[in-house]
């Protein structure tokens, strides 16, 4: 027999208690790692630009410079691109008037809903808009403020392009961060400008957050060294709202994780100290035989360390296995995309387990160190 062998034998003394303790630690560690993964999923996207599925592509030289319409099929072929739509700011005003405070944009109505999924328009109004080349939909705020009505005609003179458009209101939308815009057909603008063949920006929807992060450089590369180089960016406004929205949840998850760790520490500490209390007499006999105080303390530390180590291996390992084997993305209906257990999380869990092992053995070790042999022999006598 060796000292480590002796320790293992001691650890397996009460198999049911060992199993339950390890299970308890494992479940908590599993929870901890899962919370870390969730936290990462929530916070990482806004930091790396992957949160937004929406990407804008603009002329690299200046925002005012338009892009050629022939870029469309090239962008559509880039992997990870789900939809591409032109978007051109019309900068319109009513005749002779000051520029309007509510903007008008020319877009492709057939792709509009794919890219601005949050915008809500009654189905029949949306269909009417798609069908009628000279129709438009208006944001609820502007519609109310200007006391507009369905069927009303609006004539805008562009402050940017040498043309005007006459639009018919066929619908009212809401649900965007800015419900003031007039959306109309890009095809109509093309026509008004005499087969213009250009667009202001391209707006893209990526298939998922992961590809969204990868698409931007691909798009820029596709038009590098052409006469129309582009800059592709994910949508900032969306990101900002995302960050502020998750701030509270971050705090909540941090709090829950702390609570999990604290309760785990309390339970483990009481388990360890109970199992040591039961063995006071034995430990006293070991002391009498000649084992040093520091050796006995090391035994206790090793035992509680081993307990935590087993727990973290099963718990964090289980979380890792789950992230590897289960299709979290479809299980959560796309709420969690990558659900990755990083080495850093495993490290954090291991560190937490190490701290647990040390902290839960401090008091039992101290009481054993302080115990005199005679005092220890008296227990159970």
């Amino acid at each position, binding site marked *: 027999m060796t000292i480590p062998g*002796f320790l293992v*034998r001691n650890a397996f003394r009460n198999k049911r208690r060992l199993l339950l303790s390890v299970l308890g630690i494992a479940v908590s560690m599993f929870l901890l790692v899962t919370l870390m993964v969730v936290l990462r999923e929530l916070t990482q996207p806004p930091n790396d630009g992957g949160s937004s599925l929406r990407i804008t592509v603009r002329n690299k030289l200046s925002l005012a410079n338009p892009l050629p319409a022939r870029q469309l099929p090239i962008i559509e072929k880039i992997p990870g691109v789900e939809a591409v739509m032109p978007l051109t700011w019309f900068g319109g005003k009513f005749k002779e008037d000051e520029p309007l405070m509510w903007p008008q944009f020319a877009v492709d109505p057939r792709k509009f809903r794919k890219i601005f999924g949050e915008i809500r328009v009654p189905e029949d109004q949306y269909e009417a808009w798609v069908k009628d080349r000279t129709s438009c939909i208006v944001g609820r705020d502007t519609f109310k403020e200007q006391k507009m009505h369905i069927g009303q005609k609006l004539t805008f003179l562009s402050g940017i392009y040498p043309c005007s458009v006459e639009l018919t209101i066929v619908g009212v939308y809401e649900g965007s961060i800015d419900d003031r815009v007039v959306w109309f057909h890009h095809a109509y603008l093309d026509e008004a400008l005499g087969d213009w063949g250009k667009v202001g920006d391209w707006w893209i929807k990526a298939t998922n957050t992961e590809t969204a992060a990868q698409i931007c450089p691909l798009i820029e590369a596709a038009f590098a060294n052409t006469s129309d180089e582009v800059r592709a960016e994910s949508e900032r406004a969306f990101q900002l709202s995302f960050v502020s929205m998750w701030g509270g949840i971050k705090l909540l998850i941090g709090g829950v994780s702390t609570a999990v760790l604290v309760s785990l520490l309390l339970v483990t500490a009481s388990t360890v100290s109970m199992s040591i209390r039961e063995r006071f007499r034995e430990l006293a006999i070991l002391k009498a035989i*000649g084992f040093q105080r520091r050796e006995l303390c090391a035994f206790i530390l090793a035992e509680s360390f081993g307990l935590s180590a087993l727990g973290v291996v099963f718990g964090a390992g289980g979380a890792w296995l789950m992230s590897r084997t289960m299709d979290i993305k479809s299980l959560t209906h796309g709420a969690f995309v990558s659900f990755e257990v990083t080495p850093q999380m495993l490290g954090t869990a291991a560190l937490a387990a190490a701290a647990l092992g040390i902290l839960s053995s401090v008091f039992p070790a101290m009481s054993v160190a302080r115990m005199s042999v005679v005092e220890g022999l008296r227990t159970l006598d």
Partner: protein
Amino acid sequence: MPPIVTIRSLSKVYRQGEMEIAALDNVSLDIAQGEFLSLMGPSGSGKSTLLHIIAGIDRPTSGECRVGGVGVTELDDSQLADWRNQNVGFVFQSFNLIPVLTAYENVELPLLLMDLNGTRRKELVHTALELVGLADRARHLPKQMSGGQEQRVAIARAIVTDPKLVVADEPTGNLDSASAEAVLEILRTLSSKAGKTVIMVTHDPRAASFGSKTIHLEKGRLLDVA
């Protein structure tokens, strides 16, 4: 030959609030090498206390205790632990053995603290188990043995490091007379054949009669030296 244990004016006082209890009151005693000393006396007379101080697991309030020329009372805790490992074998009344270890492993335990290789350890454990007549029970766990066998394993563990001194606190207290006799016989052999000094606390005059000498304690004082 000089005595192996020399005790001079040894006192142990427990303070409980205002009260002072003298567990040992000015005890002086010599114990010769190879002696099998029986320590008798009523409950609470200080037998265990005296035994504990001689064995280096308790400290006196005042007085001196030398074992084999070493001033046991002057060693610090860590030195004392090493000294016990090499010089004293312990047998207690009950629950002596580590329940998760086999007889063999229990006997091997004190050897783990010594600088010995596996082969040498094996030899020593086997010799000790043979001496108590339990070589065939080496693989048994304590709960698979009778009380008498357990006590004999405890004796094997006490002598495996070849200490000068074996102390036993009521080693037959929980045993039937046949088992007790076997244990006492082994202790007697240790002193008469192996030259070990054995100090045994007992309530039982018949057990005491196995010893080469009996002393009596009462209220912490030594009575006659028979």
